[in-house]
């Protein structure tokens, strides 16, 4: 964003802040007017959390009443602000969908690979197959002579 744009947006936002002081809340329905008054009076942190409490229709009524309180020339500036917010919101939404997509693909991918490997190994290495494998044979102690050698010795002994 160029310096000219920054100055222009700075001007727009400060113009809105000044105009907000002139906004007549009484133009709104009674219940909504009370909520808007509370919203104006709250400190920054609390006001930000209150934004979500306004419904879509409420927001529409408030912004329409605010725009009506200003001349046509200033309303063109509101269009620019709205367009700026809209583009920004679109950018953020697209970015969030991209991260959601990555997270879902990564989670399901990792689990699918692990499941596939586990099932494949469990099938190839069933207990029956493992017991038939040479590794499952009881180990012969190192110093013990083989059966064949023992037989030979016995035969020799008999000859003597």
């Amino acid at each position, binding site marked *: 964003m160029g310096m000219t744009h920054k100055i222009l947006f700075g001007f727009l936002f400060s113009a809105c802040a000044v105009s907000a002081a002139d906004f007549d809340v009484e133009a709104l329905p009674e219940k909504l007017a009370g909520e808007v008054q509370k919203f104006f009076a709250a400190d920054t942190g609390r006001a930000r959390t209150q934004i*979500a409490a306004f419904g879509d229709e409420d927001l529409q009524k408030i912004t329409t009443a605010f725009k009506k309180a200003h001349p046509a020339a200033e309303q063109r500036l509101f269009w620019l602000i709205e367009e700026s917010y809209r583009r920004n919101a679109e950018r*953020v*939404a697209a*970015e*969030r*969908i991209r*991260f*959601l997509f*990555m*997270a*879902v693909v*990564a*989670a*399901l991918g*990792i*689990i699918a690979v*692990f*499941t596939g490997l*586990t*099932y494949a*190994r*469990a099938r190839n*290495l*069933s*207990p029956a*197959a*493992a*017991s038939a*494998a040479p*590794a*499952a044979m*009881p*180990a012969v102690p190192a110093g013990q002579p083989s059966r064949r050698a023992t037989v030979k010795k016995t035969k020799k002994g008999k000859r003597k």
Partner: protein
Amino acid sequence: MLYYALLLLSVSVGGYAAYVALIEAPADAMQGNVQRIFYFHVPLVWVSFVAFIGGALMSIRYLQTRSMRTDAWARAFIKTGWVFTTTVLVTGPLWAKPVWGTFWNWGDERLISFFVMWMMYNGYILLRATIHDFEKGARIGAVLALLALANAALVVAAIYIWKTASHPGPVFVQKSGGGVLDPLMRRAFWLNFSAFSLLFVCILVAKFHFEKAAAVSNGHDA
């Protein structure tokens, strides 16, 4: 045959759960679509903890009985839990980047304790792979599984002990009134919760068969 049927069931439930979570459930008012990661992230955490509690219980049983069958169960629980924990460590940062502006916050106690827990289970798996004496590996592994579970308890308690933790609190009991309130959001959550729990059981049973066969091939009666 039973666990192939279980797998088919969990994949079917998972497919429907993913549809509800990604399409039917409304987007969060503040976070937008990225909040949908929560439907996968939280059930994955739940399954990880079930796996590690199961692994620790089987380890205690192994230390009492010295049965290689219970050791095979412990290995199956912990290795399956490790995969789910790894998935949690992938999905969490992918949610954090657009919401916090950074993938990871080294100042958050819950994140750090979770990372340490993951490292401990890495250690368990490495230990079991490198100690060739099967019984010695089982004995040391059982002790390590119990130590890692103590760390898992710290992960749960982190947001209560250190108030500075930026990680969101429990989703259904937030004092600020947040969390999952919309019925469709609740439905998406519980469906995914069931799907991942079922999938965990499927993988666990298959993994146990593999680990049991590995113990048999090492000359142990499992």
